[in-house]
């Protein structure tokens, strides 16, 4: 399988990269890990006139904790880098675990968090946990930087708010917060290299046995990751119990609109949402950030 022809650029700075993307127009695409766009190009689903490699923007690979701000993950951090990062594990082990469940080892060594978000695949593994934890993303373009909450970043399958002319995702911030637990659990047909049939992320703030706040985000069951706010309302302010979490699971089913495809029928996905919402809530409540 060969790639179509394209021009290649490897700018040395972010400013140079955005300027280049503006100059080359929307037919030019940024290149991060390449694990999605090169597959699309081989399959004839994309034929950019040029690829602008971001490999020299080493400052975007950084992962750090900024007191008062939170966990800052550079858009070019690879999935294995996130999985193995002590800073990530210390604050949100759940994000490290979600990164580990994604694709396979070779892909995780190349694929980046920024690429995972910008590709906006409904079954992507990182968006649910990041949205549950209230993450925001920063994009830099010719007109400067802007930050949007990740929950309003996705607009449809393979669509997001990023401007095709010159905008580059630079960092993901998971704010410093009072949540006591979070988790992402995924149902895939295999352990490795499988897309999520359903993925559920939860983040909770517990006060003893009382759930003060909850966020539930469902992946692979709608055009975009869905925040199941109705389901969270069912449990907030209440003392947790298995029955209560089952009720939240049932409510979450009403928040999604899954499709039937080769990996599972819509009915099957709905039932998975019920069970996985219940399980993911229980894990976050009883085990902390895992």
């Amino acid at each position, binding site marked *: 399988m060969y790639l179509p022809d394209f021009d290649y650029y490897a700018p040395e700075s972010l400013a140079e990269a955005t300027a280049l993307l503006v100059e080359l127009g929307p037919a030019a695409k940024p*290149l991060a890990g390449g694990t999605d766009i*090169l597959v699309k190009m*081989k*399959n004839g689903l994309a034929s950019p006139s040029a690829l602008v490699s971001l490999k020299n923007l080493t400052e975007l690979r950084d992962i750090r904790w900024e007191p008062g701000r939170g966990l800052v993950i550079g858009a070019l951090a690879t999935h294995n880098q996130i999985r193995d990062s002590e800073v990530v594990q210390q604050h949100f082990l759940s994000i490290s675990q979600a990164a580990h469940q994604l694709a396979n080892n*070779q892909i995780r060594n190349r694929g980046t968090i920024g690429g995972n978000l910008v590709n906006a695949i409904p079954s992507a593994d990182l968006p649910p946990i990041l949205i549950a934890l209230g993450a925001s993303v920063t994009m830099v373009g010719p007109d400067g930087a802007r930050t949007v909450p990740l929950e309003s970043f996705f607009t449809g399958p393979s669509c997001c708010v990023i401007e095709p002319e010159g905008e580059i995702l630079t960092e993901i911030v998971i704010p410093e917060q009072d949540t006591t637990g979070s988790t992402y659990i995924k149902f895939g047909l295999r352990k490795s290299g499988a897309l999520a049939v359903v993925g559920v992320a939860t983040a909770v703030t517990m006060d003893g046995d009382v759930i003060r706040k909850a966020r539930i985000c469902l992946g692979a069951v709608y055009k975009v990751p869905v925040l199941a706010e109705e389901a969270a309302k069912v449990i907030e302010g209440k003392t947790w119990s298995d029955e209560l979490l089952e009720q939240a699971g049932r409510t979450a089913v009403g928040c999604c609109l899954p499709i039937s495809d080769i990996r599972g029928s819509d009915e099957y996905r709905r039932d998975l949402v019920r069970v996985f919402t219940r399980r993911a809530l229980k894990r976050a409540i009883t085990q902390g950030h895992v």
Partner: protein
Amino acid sequence: MQAIADKQGVKRYLVDVTVNGDDYSVVVKANTLLVNLLRDEIDLTGTKKGCELGDCGSCTVLLDGKPVDACLVLALEADGCDVITIEGVAQHGELDKLQRSFADNAAIQCGYCTPGMILSAKALLTRNPKPTEPEVRAAISGNLCRCTGYVNIVKAVMAAASGEVTA
């Protein structure tokens, strides 16, 4: 990166890459993949092409020590990097203990997945010299063996790690 255009206007680029310790400077088109650079430009055909979409792992090489699918890396993206292919695993004409162990444990059937398996396992043992069986299985989870010889492959990696190899 400076492009060199020929008379027809086709752009080519100079890539400097270290493969198995040897430095190469190769002029390639932007759409040349690392696997094609290795196989076609420098004749290292031990790296196999399977699915070419990042699913099967038969083109696995170590890029700066990490296993990656060479079918999903542009040759230009490997500029300045250190690449290890299956040809670079044996040292001084002696098989690596992993290679020895694969042979001893009959972990090779058709052999097509073997270069990728060895490199994934090599990266694991470098990072984690005494892995558990689940860790071995996780490390080779991006390498498909369609002869389904996984049991012996896992056995071979475990044996290499524990030193039970008659080198």
